[in-house]
């Protein structure tokens, strides 16, 4: 074999070797998470969060893959059931970040589970954008890898206070669930109402898993407040609506917190929900992007997303996607990109300050017909508010 020929073969081999990685499928970007598929957290997690993860991975892959600093790579979701248990959450994320060393992680569902992952994301250095975690205490941990994209309690309660003040509401009765969420919302509400001069004439609390609120509602009805506010969780939201209707307690404003934004709230209670207000962010009428999101969700999962945190879960994925496109998978750089960047999402522009989404305003939404209309702030409103609330149907 002549040297020239040998050289020719060599260069051919080298060329082939150089082409190989490009020709072969590049390894997928592995994205790990644990989320409740069984146990008490499953209902919320499977309505608000995991369907968005699955839909996002599908859309990204259908479009040729995730843009990693200009190179398209498929994504592979590595998702496990956390059994609604803190210990299982911790163990699974230790596996994902410590042993499997996945490229990215997505958050679990709920404030408690997010708390449990906090020390781990800092230890292993994985940024996490949480759509279902609320609380000053969570942000108070000052974890540089943690980003809360949902509006925090004080922001939501300020919006409610502004809305009620604009309607000249003077008195309110409040009940709240004895849980971090209920307490933090109440603290926010108390401060906001004080500032706006709305008097809280009655305040009652109740335990998680309450089965009867009628005695409390009867007391409150006798005091005849302008507004009634239940800082409640989904089961109690359903309960308080049904029982207020039963005793015909119909204040000018009727507000219940978590669960009002769920499509099942409307489907189960029917016309009774007309005029009920609650925590929300957007609906299909909010923007073309919101409409596209709702349509895609219905097409993929054959069910509507909820009108509050679902969109935040989707927005969190959009933030992650845009940050990865910009800086790739280096997680330190990714964290910095998320912390300092501004992102275009379905919920509008998102920017973080000290881990908190500071661009999305507090919103008040209200059921009107089959839609949970945004009624506050005015520049986000999709319909004028029904005030006072019509009689129960």
């Amino acid at each position, binding site marked *: 074999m002549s040297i020239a020929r040998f050289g020719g073969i060599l260069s051919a081999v080298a060329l082939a070797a150089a082409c190989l990685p490009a020709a072969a499928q590049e390894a997928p970007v592995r994205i790990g998470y644990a989320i409740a*598929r*069984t*146990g008490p957290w499953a209902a919320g997690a499977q309505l608000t969060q995991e369907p968005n993860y699955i839909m996002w991975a599908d859309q990204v892959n259908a479009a040729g893959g995730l843009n990693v600093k200009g190179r398209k790579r498929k994504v592979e979701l590595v*998702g*496990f*059931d956390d*059994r609604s*248990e*803190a*210990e299982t*959450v*911790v*163990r699974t994320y*230790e*596996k994902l*970040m*410590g*042993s*499997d060393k996945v490229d990215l992680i997505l958050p679990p569902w709920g*404030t*408690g589970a997010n*708390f*449990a992952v*906090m*020390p781990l994301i800092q230890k292993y250095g994985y940024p996490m954008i949480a759509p279902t975690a609320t609380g000053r*205490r969570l942000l*108070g*941990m000052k974890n540089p890898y943690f980003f809360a994209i949902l509006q925090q309690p004080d922001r939501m309660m300020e919006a409610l206070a502004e809305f009620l003040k604009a309607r000249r509401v003077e008195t309110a009765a409040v009940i709240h669930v*004895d*849980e*971090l969420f209920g*307490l933090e919302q109440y603290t926010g509400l108390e401060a906001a109402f004080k500032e706006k001069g709305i008097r809280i004439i009655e305040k009652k*609390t109740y*335990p*998680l898993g309450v089965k009867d609120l009628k005695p409390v509602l009867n007391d409150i009805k006798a005091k005849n407040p302008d507004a009634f506010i239940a800082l409640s969780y989904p089961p109690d939201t359903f309960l308080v609506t049904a029982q207020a209707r039963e005793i015909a307690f119909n204040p000018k404003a009727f507000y219940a917190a978590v669960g009002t934004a769920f499509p099942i709230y409307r489907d189960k209670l029917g016309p009774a929900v007309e005029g009920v207000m609650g925590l929300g962010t957007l609906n299909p009428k909010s923007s073309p992007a919101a409409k596209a999101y709702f349509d895609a969700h219905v097409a993929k999962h054959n069910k509507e997303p909820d009108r509050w945190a679902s969109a935040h879960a989707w927005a969190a994925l959009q933030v992650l996607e845009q940050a990865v496109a910009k800086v790739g998978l280096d997680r330190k750089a990714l964290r910095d990109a998320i912390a300092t960047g501004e992102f275009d999402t379905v919920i509008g522009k998102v920017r973080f300050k000290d881990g908190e989404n500071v661009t999305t305003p507090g919103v008040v939404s209200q059921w009107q017909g089959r839609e949970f209309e945004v009624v506050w702030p005015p520049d986000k409103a999709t319909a004028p508010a029904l005030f006072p609330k019509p009689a129960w149907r």
Partner: protein
Amino acid sequence: MRLATALAACAIAGLVLAPAPWLVSDFALSLTLSCLMYVGLAVSWAMFSGATNYLSLATAAFFGIGAYVTAWGHGTLPYAVAVPLGGLAAALFAAAIGAAVLHLRGAYFAVITFGLGELVRHAITYGEKTWARTVGRVISDPPATETVYLVVLALALAAVATAAAVRASRFGLALAGVGSDEERARTLGVNTRLVKTGGFALAAFFAGALGAAVAVRWTYIEPASVFNPFIGFQTVLIAMVGGAHTLAGPIASAVVFSVLTELLRLQFPYAYLIVLGALLILLVLYLPGGLASLLERWKWRQRHA
């Protein structure tokens, strides 16, 4: 199992398992920790309930009390003090409650011990919101994973050693006496009330200490997560599948059950509960005496071959 053999086995297990944090992967360590937690819970549960046939569903209550002791003490009490203190608080609570309810038997005892968990959960929720204006507690700088692991390992081994020592003692005989015929035990001069209360409190100590040790991993301690009835049910299930009247049964079962659940969960993310349920049904149908009865049957055959 002879006491000396059991203690030697504990010592060997301790020597083998102690270096794990520096040798195995994070996930393997985490899984071992889970196994050890359930070894401790199931063995201490069986030490009282297996021997006396008093079916206690209070494990979650003890576990939660321990967890809250670490939560309350966080920042002031060192971890090494909070853990035994958590155990002690649970044991004191068990002794006080035991004195009041241990005359109940069967389903009544089971139901009231389950109710206890709810009682403590609501009492703590109420107290926290009234006096501390909060419900959950944040553990801002938890001890290192290695520390938690070693403490849980020590507790699990201590539970096994204690259970072995109890079985070999007069106290253990008295507990077993209560289990086989309480009237006769009393007639023979056993102070059944004292024995039952003591056994109940001793079992509670380990559940409380384990709660105090493990819950720091969760960063946020709230009533709903630490008084999780699932922890209590799982403990009873493990002990029964293993054979609650034996020492080795619950240990083997805790390891098998934890590892199996985990493997199924990771392999079949959507179907694992169905598989697990089917396995449990088969076990109950064909091995009512638990895993330990396999060994007993084999020994019996050896002897009568």
